[in-house]
């Protein structure tokens, strides 16, 4: 099991039509760690993810994986370098089976083109068989193996979230980016998901970067936390350090939103509640 390289974000700034969505944000995901990015609604968390994966282009700043510069590359190139992500609003192909959705993630690891696939050349067939076996293994690992033949659109929301996680794993990433993995899940499902994230880290030894609203989950599983507010980085540190930071509590309470206020209340909650 190879050690994943550190993912470092340095001075990222993103502007849309005059609005500054991210302002000079920096943090580093240490190898093998679970790193969370939190912040009130509109703080720029998803924008941050989209910059890391190349969906948006940063106006300034750099992202590096190990020694490799990611900024300026197109999304599929970044994926090739070892970043795998899930989407906050599930982006599975609803009419394809779960197996097909997972096989898509093997795209970069396979080579069969139009001609060899269309003619069913032996190497294409062999390759497909080999990768199907690995995909089934990963599905087994996440516990969605019984769902492989079902069209993704017919699954429950919770199952779709797990398929998303599996799909990101099928990329064999060095760093896994999870965009609100438990949003919309009930307590039971959230606990399962938290366990799966911990299992992934333990089993595969890869770093995990999470954007999440659920403080319980974050405080329970994250090693390090970065807090964003209005596109700025307002706090860094271990869960305990962040929880004590008055700037963080102010940011959450200041928004006046119900869910943010609830998060603020949770900031004071005992560690690991969600992960129990």
């Amino acid at each position: 099991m190879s050690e994943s390289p550190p993912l470092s974000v340095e001075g990222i700034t993103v502007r849309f039509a005059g609005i500054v969505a991210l302002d000079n944000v920096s943090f580093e995901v240490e190898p093998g760690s679970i790193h969370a990015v939190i912040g009130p609604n509109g703080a720029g968390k998803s924008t941050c993810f989209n910059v890391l994966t190349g969906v948006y282009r940063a106006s300034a700043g750099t992202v590096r994986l190990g020694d490799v510069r990611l900024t300026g590359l197109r999304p599929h190139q970044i994926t090739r370098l070892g970043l795998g992500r899930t989407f906050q609003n599930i982006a599975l192909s609803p009419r394809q089976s779960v197996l097909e959705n997972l096989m898509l993630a093997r795209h970069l690891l396979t080579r069969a083109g139009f001609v060899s696939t269309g003619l069913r050349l032996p190497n294409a067939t062999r390759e497909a068989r080999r990768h199907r076996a690995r995909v089934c293994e990963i599905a087994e690992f996440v516990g969605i193996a019984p769902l492989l033949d079902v069209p993704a659109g017919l699954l429950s929301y919770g199952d779709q979230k797990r398929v998303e996680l599996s799909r990101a794993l099928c990329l064999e990433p060095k760093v896994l980016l999870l965009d609100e993995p438990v949003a919309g899940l009930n307590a039971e499902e959230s606990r399962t998901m938290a366990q799966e994230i911990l299992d992934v880290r333990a089993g595969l030894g890869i770093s995990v970067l999470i954007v999440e609203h659920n403080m319980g989950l974050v405080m329970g599983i994250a090693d390090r936390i970065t807090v964003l507010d209005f596109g700025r980085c307002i706090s860094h540190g271990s869960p305990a350090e962040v929880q004590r930071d008055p700037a963080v509590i102010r940011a959450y309470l200041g928004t006046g939103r119900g869910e943010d206020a609830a998060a603020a209340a949770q900031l004071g909650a005992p560690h690991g509640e969600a992960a129990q």
Partner: protein
Amino acid sequence: MSELLRRHASRAVIIALVVVLAALPLYVGAFWLQLGLFVFAAAIGAIGLNLVTGTAGQLSLAHAFFLAIGAYGYAYLSGTATSIGGGVVVDGRELPPLLAAALAVALAGLAGLLFSPIAGRLRGIYLGVASLSLVFIGQHVLLNAKDITGGFYGRNAAPFQLFGFTFTDEDPDLTVLGVRFGQRERLWYLGLVLLILCYLFATNVLRGRPGRALQTIRDSEIAAATMGVNVRAYKAWAFVLSSMYAGLAGVLVALAFQRPVPDYFNLTLSITYLAMIVIGGLGSVRGAVIGAAFVTALPLVLTHYSDHLTFLAQPGESGVGAADFAKYVYGGLVIVVILVAPGGLAGLFGARGRQTGVTTDQPDPTGPSSSVMVKEDPL
């Protein structure tokens, strides 16, 4: 296990169909053979359009243009220099027909590739409208590049030849089981074999790695890119493959017509192809074939039987004739399919699952989407 049964049943149906199609020239007359040849050509073209529009979700109204490249490419490459009237002399390359056909298909693919920088940059409906321009530019070229196309009067397409066997009425004379095999019988088999090969190729592509990538591009370009698909390249390849299918269909059309004329390759043809894949079922290879057969055969069969169809105006009477009626039916079907049966005719015949198309009437299973403004196209 019912899944397995269904698969066997549908395989049996397809085999039975192929058997019937292979035996038909022994029974039916010239009209049906000619019709069959048109259907085979249209089916190949429709499978191609379906790859780019049905599977990858890129609306293309340029199909007539790529068909024209196939048809005229073949006529030019296999043709000899001849005077065609009106003082016009068309040029020709006198290549062996098989080579000419292969090169014509490649040429259509190349045209698709040249269009791909535009296809890659544009999204959704902009692409559809941009592709419209190829049809108009194509018509302009067909009518003006007279020494290659023959202008409005068209030019002859050389008969097809395969290793010395010609697809004409004689040379060699051929009688199979008491039936004389003339040009139409021979071309029938050529069309049938090509269609089967094209069908299998497309099915394999869709089930495999490139097919998954294309379908994901249709559902979400960002998801596809994030999963490692080079979206721009794949959109371009989809156009190339689609236009090669169109090119092959064009070659068959040239052989069926014996003399392609520019009038045929107009916007109506593009729209007819679109109707085929919608009626058949977007995204489904089988649907493309069913839709092509339906849309191609309907007006001809209605006219063929118009004497017996008393609700149609007979030739010379006022009222709705066979041709108009066929247009109402297929225009209406396009509407109905999109409104109530997104799977198209193929959906009604039992294909399902991954094969259904871009439309969906059910609530979007991906949940609400958020939109953001992007300063620069990231893909």
